């Protein structure tokens, strides 16, 4: 009888710990409207992707890296990719066309807002990174470094639709749930 009670207590504790562990991930999701960012990208998509001459190389999806991210690593991966674009891609790209530059700036501002939202989760220790997420982030940075800066930047901007679709998929499912 005592053994049963102890086992039940342990099972309950494990369930509580799992829920606590996963709970931050479920609460740490981006609730902003992504349509504005997607519409801005669609307007510059043709201009950006036309200038990408290396069609057989991808930066964000080497061997489907993003597709293999687990739900627990979504918060970490989102945070890392937002930092990648804000800290490297937007800064390295030199856009001569002012209209395209305006759209890129709008996208960058939206990414900054998303970073602030995820920082709150990080402060609350609700956005921890696993080894898999860390490795996937490193691959992306390596792919970016293999190309010439302008080509890498233009290619990364051209792959924004991949990043936005991944965010939409992972955070959309969370919000819908």
């Amino acid at each position: 009888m005592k053994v049963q009670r102890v086992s039940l207590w342990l099972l309950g504790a494990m369930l509580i710990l799992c829920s606590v562990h996963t709970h931050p991930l479920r609460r740490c999701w981006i609730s902003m409207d992504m349509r504005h960012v997607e519409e801005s990208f669609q307007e510059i998509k043709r201009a950006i992707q036309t200038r990408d001459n290396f069609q057989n190389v991808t930066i964000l999806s080497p061997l489907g890296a993003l597709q293999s991210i687990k739900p627990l690593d979504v918060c970490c991966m989102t945070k890392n990719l937002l930092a990648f674009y804000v800290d490297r891609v937007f800064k390295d790209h030199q856009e001569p066309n002012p209209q395209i530059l305006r759209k890129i700036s709008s996208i960058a501002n939206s990414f900054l807002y998303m970073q602030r939202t995820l920082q709150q989760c990080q402060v609350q220790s609700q956005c921890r990174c696993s080894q898999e997420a860390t490795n996937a982030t490193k691959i992306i940075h390596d792919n970016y470094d293999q190309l010439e800066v302008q080509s890498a930047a233009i290619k990364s901007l051209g792959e924004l639709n991949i990043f936005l679709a991944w965010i939409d998929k992972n955070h959309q499912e969370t919000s819908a749930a």
Partner: protein
Amino acid sequence: MLSLLVVPLTAILSLCHGFSEHGTELPSPPSAWFEAEFFQHILHWTPIPNQSESTYYEVALLEYGKEPWRDIPSCRRTLEFSCDLTTATLNLYHNNGYRAKVRAVDGSRHSNWTSTQTRFSVDEVTLTVGSVKLEMQEGSILGTIQPPRPQMAPEGNTYEKIFRHFRQYEIAIRKVPGNLTFIIKRVRHENFSLPASGEVGKFCVMVKPSLASRTNKGAWSEEQCIVLSKQYLTVTNLSVFTSVLLLCGALAYCLALQLYLRHRRKLPSVLVFKKPSPIIPVSQLPYPEMQDTIHSLIEEAFPKVSPELRNSDLHGSTDSGFGSAKPSLQTEELQFLLPTPHPQACGALGKGVPTELQDSCSNGSHSSTDSGICLQVLNYGPGPGPTWEQQVEKASQGQDDSGIGLVHNSEGQPGDAQSGSTLGHVSLTRPEVLEEEDPAAVAFPGYLKQTRCTGEKAAPAGCLEEETPLTGDLGAQFRTYPDAEADWPPPALAKGYMKQDPPRVTVAPSGSPTGQWNQLPAEGSFLGLTNSGDLGTSDWSFIHDLAPLDCVAASGGLLGSFDSDMVALPLISSLYSNE
């Protein structure tokens, strides 16, 4: 020397030009792009200028991030500027997109490659619907949207699974007589309902899909039309109809029951000449509509009239207001004739042809709707006049009047005539008539049968106050009646008929009858005749309108008033004289 080198050089140059044209002579297609729907990915390109009939195009496809380019041989068709790459791009909804390129080939010549400007990804897929089904249900249009089900889609790659969240549809409805289209609403499910709001006619609906989380464009579906008509056989209508039917059945049953009960009633006592029943209190009297009811009065309750009046002729009218048959005259000997009043005869009376009345009265009842009193003017003149006859049996033959009919009495009584008593010998129906009166049928308060002429004055005071104006002498005559009110004795039991008021009028055998005369109905005003002074034959119709005269005439006390005031007598005499 130089001339010898020109020829070989020219040959060499021509050969070199031919080689170059074989590789890059053809111009490249100006552009290439994808036009895609759900699992229907078509690559389009613009043709090269000045192409020949043998020119065809080569298509190559690259999955973004993977090498090498794949040649699509199925696209090598002449004079075609598009190619279906669905089979080669089945992984579109799970990868990062594709790149495609096209070049023109004509024989040994080919053009440069022309690539699509953007990577072909899921964002470029135009959303569509498979079908829209409409049906009408309880006044609303129910729609069901069927997502596309292309045959090329691999198993498990349905529209709902690929676009799992935030699917929505815009619905546009249009009424066929007209091109005005309304976008009713946006729904987030594949089922929708549009309230018709009672509209009938043909309606056409279109649907455009979209995704709230994506920027994919949507295409309007084909119009689906439905005809809305008035639905009569709905559950609501059937229930209402059933309830109304049940209600009507209940009403019909109640009506039939009431009719059955009414048929069981006896004939009014007016139609059955039997012994008079005792005086019925006024409170028991029915409503004035039952004009055929005759109440008998206690003879002793009414004062006896003077002998002169007792045997004098009484005027009669064509109505049931034979209360003017004064109680004083209503002795047992006096019998009012109760033939069926003939309307024409009564009209003839108005014309001053009373002789005709006799025949009409003697003929018994007719289908008249008046009081049944058929006057026959006494012939006080030299000529023979009709005789008063006792016609008891003839008065009750289905007529709905009081059954009182006055018949001329040719037995002229000069004395009475001289005294102005033009009242003929009126025969009252026998009191037996009242015996069989159904209390329910005796609802008519108009006439109170009197058994005896008490000879006492009636108190017509109250009735004189009736609103019906009297003209000339007629009015003057009645003004005298209030004087007699003070002397009004209790009505004695008498035979005859005294017109009664509506239920408020009480006929108390021992009580003062004054109150009776205060409230008398306005119909049947023949009684006024007896009290009018100079009524001529032309006044017959007028008399009918004299409501208060009825009470006056019906009062037994009035008979007493004739003792002192013989003003009525000249009227009758004048009537006789007109004959």
